[in-house]
């Protein structure tokens, strides 16, 4: 019974983390899947969201900025707004860049954020990070506090999924796919490509900020190295590519699948003797990378293929030049 309860709690934690990663992956899906924007700085937006909510919700402390006493819900809203504003600024200056250049620029900007979080000790407590971030439902007894957090994450993912599916099918979503597939044609059709791309960048950035905020509340602690490319950006990219970019269901499924594999590997590693355990942690990253390469070469569409829009069958022939 004791053991079953342990497994149950483990499952709850697993799904909570998988759900939080699903929020991040849905955000990246707006950038890369819908619009074709190569954002290599997922970790940067994640960190902005996490730090925003940490500062506005945690208790007053001499070590960092804080003591605003807002509720976690207000903190998450603030995190989304802050990430959206930053994404707008970043988008304004580098949205015109071609994919490779955008990847380099966003990685550079994410590194600048990390330097700021590390060096502005008065606000962020520097490398020691911010701890004791309030967690929703933590006043309830175990296991209800953990179940409450899980239900909150599930609700967030469900709402986002429904909204993003509607967005994808809407004229807005179709224009995004058009920009990704053929920018010149979208421009010729009179679409304001820059503006639409910035809209997608801001929306995706806000979701990544929300993911960061959920993570900060869930683990109650945030530090600058959580924004290293390894922990956030890489995993989220693998999740999206494996699940199937352009497909929201794929994004959610990929996040939960990769997170399950990632943490199952952790359990296996914990059972190994200590001198092996450290090494196996590296092996785990290597294997996830290998899985990414395998999917890229063999199943470039991912598990869930993107669902294309169907055009009326009679139109294509009529449009052809004589």
């Amino acid at each position, binding site marked *: 019974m004791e053991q079953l309860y342990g497994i149950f709690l483990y499952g709850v934690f697993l799904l909570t983390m998988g759900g939080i990663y699903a929020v991040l992956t849905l955000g990246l899906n707006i950038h890369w899947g819908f619009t074709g924007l*190569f954002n290599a700085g997922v970790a940067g937006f994640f960190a902005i969201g996490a730090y925003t909510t940490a500062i506005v919700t945690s208790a007053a402390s001499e070590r960092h900025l804080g003591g605003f006493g807002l509720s976690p819900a207000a903190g998450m809203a603030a995190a989304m707004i802050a990430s959206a504003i930053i994404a707008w600024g970043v988008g304004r200056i*580098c949205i015109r860049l071609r994919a490779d250049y955008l*990847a380099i*620029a966003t990685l550079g900007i994410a590194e600048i954020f990390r330097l700021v979080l590390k060096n502005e000790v008065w606000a962020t407590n520097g490398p020691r990070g911010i701890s004791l971030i309030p967690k929703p439902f933590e006043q309830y007894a175990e296991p209800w506090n953990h179940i409450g957090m899980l239900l909150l994450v599930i609700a967030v993912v469900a709402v986002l999924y429904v909204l993003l599916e509607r967005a994808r099918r809407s004229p807005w979503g179709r224009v995004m796919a058009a920009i990704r597939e053929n920018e010149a044609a979208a421009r010729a059709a009179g679409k304001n490509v820059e503006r639409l791309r910035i809209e997608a960048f801001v929306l995706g950035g806000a979701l990544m900020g929300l993911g960061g905020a959920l993570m900060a509340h869930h683990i109650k602690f945030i530090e600058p190295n959580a924004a290293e490319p390894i922990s956030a950006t*890489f995993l989220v*990219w693998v999740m999206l590519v494996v699940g199937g970019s352009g497909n929201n269901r794929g994004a959610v499924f990929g996040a939960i699948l990769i997170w399950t594999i990632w943490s199952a590997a952790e359990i296996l590693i914990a059972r190994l003797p200590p001198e092996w355990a450290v090494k196996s942690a590296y092996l785990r*990253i290597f294997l996830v*990378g290998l899985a990414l*390469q395998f999917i890229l070469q063999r199943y470039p569409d991912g598990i869930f293929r993107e669902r294309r829009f169907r055009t009326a069958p009679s139109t294509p022939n009529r449009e052809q030049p004589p």
Partner: protein
Amino acid sequence: MIEFLNFYLIPGLVLGSIYALGAIGVTLTFGILRFANFAHGETMTLGAFIALSLASFTGWHPFAVLPLAMAFTALAVLGLDRLFFRPLRHGSTIILVIASFGLMLMVRSLVQLIWGAKLQSFGPGIQLPWVLFDALRIFPKHVTIVCSAVVLMLAAHLLLTRTRAGKAMRAMADSPDLARLTGIDTERVILTTWIVGAGLAAAAGVFLAYDTHVESQLGFKLLLPIFAAALLGGIGRPYGAMAGGLVIGLVEELSTYPWIGTDALVPPGYKTGVAFAIMVAILIWRPSGLFRGRVF
């Protein structure tokens, strides 16, 4: 004034020549294979660790095993190209960027798996500087690094201008279709590109390790400054990359000099951020770089 030379200008030159070597590889792969190779930083890490193992195995000086380390690194990179880049070469180049991003993490974890994550050293230890004119202090290791870097850059220059392989590389960077039409074997050009880029990257990694220490994060720390150098010089322009590397290295070191008042112009914690900021600025205002490189 003398402090400026000792603590800012000379370290800037050393760092700049290391960046320059790394940036040549990035600019060549970007120009010829048409993608930004995020795994290039890890090539440097790999080169430094291979040299470390060779030096401890043979007991020779790190610079004596350098040619061998460059060759082994080039071989490893050719293997990685065969396994991970070649199968994707005929699709969209952006998939290659994702693959290189994944490869970056894979190579780093492999390095940590084999050599561990601890700092290791094969440098000359604590050196006494040569003192010139009673004030100018120059460390012997810095002279060795800069001279070796200049020799390697000259070699790269001769290779690109005097050999058939080099001419084919430049032709392909200018126009792959025209190059193919004139009968250039593009797969061979790609192999030469990887060999030259990986060899120079290994040298850059060894030089930085010789100056400081070997660690698994070495390459990632170099990656963004090197991208910045390649973009500053103009993509596909090896001489631009050399100049860009020197500029980025100098600017990074000189930015902490107290130009105005007595405080450092840029707080030392933000020193690496200077290169990223320059890079973002170039991308926005002058994506062709200083030497009119290509913009894809």
